[in-house]
């Protein structure tokens, strides 16, 4: 009794010091976090504000941090040069379709791998090895193939290929999510009279929805950002916004504002999308890394 009172008094004497240290520590951590956030956002902020700058504000010795108005000429010029709406639509259609297709066949495969271990680790390793191939290695046969099949510059070819790239992610992430769902729930449903497939559709799928959402978001971003195949395999018709941005790389006859406008048109949609869905994203990301 006496001992506890003594230690309590001793702790009370220590407390302000320890509290102060803790406060300083927290301030340092917060400051570091703030700096990291600023560093992360700075390039994005810069390019977006650059797109709204007047020619006078673009090339200045002292950077203009906040443009004076929403100067829209840069955007008008970019849209004059390019059918931007069409390119964005192409990106959207191709991304959504390939994500849908990859989710569908990928989840089925992931389910049978997670539950019944069909194919074993060989299947999983094989799917992952898809990810190991450098895109440039497969571009050449695809280029020739698509030309022969008359699928050059069509949405179909890009949807097919993006699905292929999304499959490793879908399988990998969904296997983890499916393994999390206890078998007992499905077995209870089967005892109650459901077929295997009904059990899958009614019990497992709703439970796996967060995983499906996270995977879908991740794959959508990946497909939207895809460049090499879109560049090689499209020309006018199925060109994606990513490829049109690449057309602005030589900064020669264009002012920076116009380049920035083109770039912003590509990254602002995905930027907003990522902010809105970030909660699901993090879940999917950390899940994959933790469970492996």
């Amino acid at each position, binding site marked *: 009794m006496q001992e506890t009172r003594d230690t309590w008094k001793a702790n009370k004497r220590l407390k302000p010091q320890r509290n102060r240290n803790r406060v300083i*520590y927290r301030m340092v*951590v*917060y400051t570091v*976090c703030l700096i*990291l*956030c600023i560093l*992360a*956002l700075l*390039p*994005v902020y*810069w*390019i977006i504000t650059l797109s709204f700058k007047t020619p006078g504000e673009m090339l*200045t*010795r002292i950077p203009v941090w906040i443009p004076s108005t929403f100067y829209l000429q840069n955007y008008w010029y970019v849209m004059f040069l390019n059918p931007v709406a069409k390119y964005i639509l192409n990106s959207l259609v191709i991304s959504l379709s390939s994500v849908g297709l990859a989710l569908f066949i990928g989840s*089925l*495969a992931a*389910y*049978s*791998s997670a539950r019944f271990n*069909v194919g074993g680790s060989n*299947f999983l390793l094989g*799917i992952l090895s*898809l*990810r*190991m*191939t*450098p*895109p*440039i*290695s*497969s571009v*050449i*046969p*695809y280029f020739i*193939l698509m030309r022969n099949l008359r699928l050059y510059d069509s949405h179909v070819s890009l949807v097919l290929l993006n699905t*292929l790239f999304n499959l490793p992610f879908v399988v990998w992430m969904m296997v983890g999510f499916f393994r999390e769902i206890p078998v007992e729930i499905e077995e209870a449903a089967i005892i109650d009279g459901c077929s*295997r*497939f009904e059990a899958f559709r009614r019990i497992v799928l709703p439970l796996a929805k967060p995983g499906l959402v996270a995977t879908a978001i991740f794959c959508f*971003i990946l497909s939207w*950002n895809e*460049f*090499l195949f879109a560049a090689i395999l499209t020309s006018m018709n199925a060109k994606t916004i*990513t490829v049109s941005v690449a057309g602005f*790389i030589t*900064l020669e006859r264009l002012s*920076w504002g116009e*380049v920035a406008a083109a*770039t912003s048109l*590509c*990254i602002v949609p*995905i*930027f907003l999308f*990522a*902010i809105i869905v*970030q909660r699901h994203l*993090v879940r999917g*990301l*950390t899940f994959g*890394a*933790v469970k492996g």
Partner: protein
Amino acid sequence: MPILLILPVILYVNILMVYPLLFSTYISFHDWDLTRPTEGMRFAGLGNYAKILSDSLFWKSWQVTITFTAGVVIFEFLLGLGVALFVVNLVKGITFSIMRSIILIPMMITPIAVGITWRILYNYQYGIINYLLNLVGIPSVEWLGSSAASLISLMIVDIWQWTPFMFVSIQAGLLSLPREPFESAKVDGASRWQTFRYVTFPLLKPVLVIVILIRMIDALKQFDIIYSLTGGGPGTATETISYYIYRVGFKYFKMGYASALSLVTFVIIMALSLILFRLISRRST
């Protein structure tokens, strides 16, 4: 029935992946110059592969690729690990969630757009990187001018984009570690460094292996940033293997040779990944 479920994926992958690879191998045994369509494909046996052995640009591009990959992965790993350990006490609050979502943004931005953005930032006269350096007294750097500087510039861009991935993954791994080993370490009187070395690090190894492997594979394949930031660098200073193959196949249109290069690259990357995987995972068990 389960086999039915998995069949679509296997079929899909086989048709769309394996067949083109075989086709590519077939092309690699021919000379096929698309700028001379009338000549078509001419059988060349192992000629292309022999050419690879004496192609100094090919081997130089591997040197650039390995330098880039090693530098980038090591930096991102150390930075990500360091920051994750540093903020490990902060993880509960809402500020942390906000910070994490902000810090993930670089990963989401289209790599091509990232390259263009940084190209503007790196500008010698008007870019804000040099402006900020000047503010603290450091003279301006010609970031995209010299060979060494452009490779470093490239690496900085990749580090900017992918350290968040390392950080968030490692931090999630840290959160999932069991508490007992840490408590017993504290009882035993371990210092912070000792706790890290003998408790945290071994427990964290599986996660670290995975994220390092993922980043290594992606860094080896890196193309978009190089295309938009340096276009291969001054001359061929930042020409990685992907960019070199791109140049051979889509600027010079030598399809046969490019196919051979692709195949050799594919095999090398596979081998590298497998070796590293075995190496690291054997050490952790």
